[in-house]
């Protein structure tokens, strides 16, 4: 099988690491070779973060380069736009419809772009998820990233049972029920 390239982007602290680890375990459990590349350290402090997951018969490099991503999972609108040129022309963008102002916007040195969702839609197949509202409605705002993951599940070739099994094995035990509920909410969109 040709290698599938997935990118997860967001703001440091939004849970990109947990998401990439779920995707990595999923690929390994399905018998693929898989590599994940993460960002640790300074960038995790509220900066723009990106992690890569690649799986297939044999994977060499651990990163996804410009123009190569099959799926871009974005936890924040501006971050989706920042990394849009990484997505293949026929690739898919799943974006959490949330706005977080970078410090340059807060201090008035830069502007938060208008119409990001329209730009995304005009250039790539895009699915917009209001994950924070959904996560709040099930009483677990912190699980918004698993809602987004649920929404992205149909862009990848795993069964629902495979997803559920891996989520159970990855998230902290006390949060399994809430995370499965969050996944289901995203999956059924």
């Amino acid at each position, binding site marked *: 099988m040709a290698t599938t390239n997935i990118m997860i982007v967001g*703001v*440091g*602290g939004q849970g990109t690491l947990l998401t990439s*680890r779920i995707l*990595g*375990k999923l690929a*390994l459990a399905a018998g693929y*070779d*898989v*590599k*994940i*590349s*993460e*960002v*640790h*350290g*300074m*960038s*995790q*402090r*509220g*900066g*723009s973060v990106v992690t890569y997951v690649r799986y297939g018969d044999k*994977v*060499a*490099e*651990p*990163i996804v*380069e*410009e*123009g190569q991503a099959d799926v871009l999972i974005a936890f924040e609108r*501006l*971050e989706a*736009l*920042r990394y*849009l*040129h990484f997505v293949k022309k026929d690739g898919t963008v799943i974006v959490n419809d949330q706005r*977080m*102002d*970078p*410090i*340059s*916007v*807060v*201090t008035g*040195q*830069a*502007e*938060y*772009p208008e119409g990001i969702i329209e*730009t995304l839609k005009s250039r790539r197949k895009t699915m917009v998820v209001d994950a924070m509202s959904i996560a709040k409605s099930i009483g677990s*705002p912190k699980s918004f990233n698993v809602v987004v993951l649920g929404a992205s599940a149909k862009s990848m070739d795993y069964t629902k049972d495979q997803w559920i099994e891996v989520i159970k094995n990855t998230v902290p035990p006390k949060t399994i029920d809430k995370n499965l509920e969050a996944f289901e909410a995203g999956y059924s969109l």
Partner: protein
Amino acid sequence: MAESKMMLGNEAIARGAYEAGVKVSAAYPGTPSTEISENLVQYDEIYAEWSPNEKVAVEVASGASISGVRSMACMKHVGLNVASDPLYTMSYIGVKGGMVLVVADDPGMYSSQNEQDTRMIGRASMVPVLEPSDSTEAKEYMKYAFDLSEKYDTPMILRTTTRLAHSQGPVALEERVEPIDIPYERDIAKHVMMPAMAIKRHLVVEDRLNRMADDATDMKLPSGIALNRAEYGDNKIGFITCGIAYQYIKEVMPEASVLKLGLVNPLPLNLIKEFAAKVDRLIIFEELEPVIEEQVKALGIKCEGKDLFTRQGEYSANMLREKVLGLKLDIEEAEKVAPRPPILCPGCPHRSVYSVLNKLKIHAAGDIGCYTLGAVAPLSVVDTTICMGSSISSLHGMEKAKGKDYIKNWVAVIGDSTFLHTGVNSLMNMVYNKATGTVIILDNSTTGMTGHQDHAATGKTLKGEPTYAINLYNLCKSMGIENVYEVNAFDIAELESVIKREQERDEVSVIITKSPCVLLKGQVFPDKCVPIPEKCKKCGACLRPGCPALTRNEDGTISIDDTMCNACGLCMQLCKFEAIKKEAK
């Protein structure tokens, strides 16, 4: 088949150490090496510690090795500078039990102050260097490094890079093999490096490197794979490469001939000559410095390298597509959107201290940690950052250069962990050499930037056991400093008055600002700050320190994101109109 697990490069290195029978590990946290020690914690057979700095860590590992057990020390690239003193001499002494230093370079400087190449230090110290290309190799190389260390009687360096350390791949788990305990023997000719002994040992070191270079052609990993491996394919182009760069070649040109080096110091020169003779065009593909390239050229072999590829940052597959295959890549331009650099967290105590320094127009000689972020707008307080511990000593240098009045609007700022790392030496120097400067220790009770590691003043070991906590106040007092003050980092009125007073004093002062890092586990934040729009005069004072939880509304009032706010109260204190209140969440 052995059980396979997804592992970070760093996790795989820890696993390799476990399987190799390591008994003692010492380290100081540093991105991208930190997770090695954090993963060693799970193995009861290994004593693993956080040392106050890398020099201490390497000396701990050295003692363990001399006593006859397998030992290791882990650090980031700049940590090896701190540890270079024991490194260069341990190269002469060699080992009893195998000893490996894991050193993580950071091409692209994701979390570092420079981009140095550890292979160069390996050459300078005449210590052999291995470099793996993925998690699978990271574990196997770690084990093999101990075999080589003992066979050739030398400390070894396992060099990694950020991309390897922080990438995950499948790793097959194997059993731990307990090495035989080596009885101690007094051997001053080998273990006491004074001139008469060292002169002889230098010859041994040189001979050892030559032997290794000769043997390198046939070195085989425990799995039977050659450590230095010529993969012949299409002979029009041949690459010599090492580390993560190998993967980019396999991604783009799986058919090309590749000489993949696992031993990057000393180089297997015979193998290189043989490979070079078989390919039409020889390209050296190595991140950072032209370490292999210069040695290949010194053999009189024609090759390309840094004329095609940069010395800076990370390499990629697209680089090869463009520079070697000559492809014009169909890549859209990146959108020019507002940058999102890292920032201090909402509720960070450093922001509070910096808001006071900013108000008082004080310059800070800075140091290494999250608080380096105080250099940029809107806080704009930190003026210099060099290396661990340098804030205090560079402030001292300024005073000696320009006099005590010159530093009346300067302070040194340093974190608690960094202070214990090397800052404490610099403070001793201030006391000894009659300085008058003011030092602020930003004490957040942890090593913050690297992900919250304990240190000698937190009362907990790497393994999570309770231990004696060094008291920073008493430590400073014991040096003979009269003016040592502890202030709550969020009491900005008190901070302002203490800083102003101590700036005026013609003696060394230490102000310890105390408040735990907001990300430290186990804390509860029951409250949140809430704006009262009818009282708001839209002055923007609350926004000035750049807390990410605050945003300005279109009408000039503010909103506070209640998922981010933990009611540190800085914005409340800055508001003169009582237009922000605390409420239960």
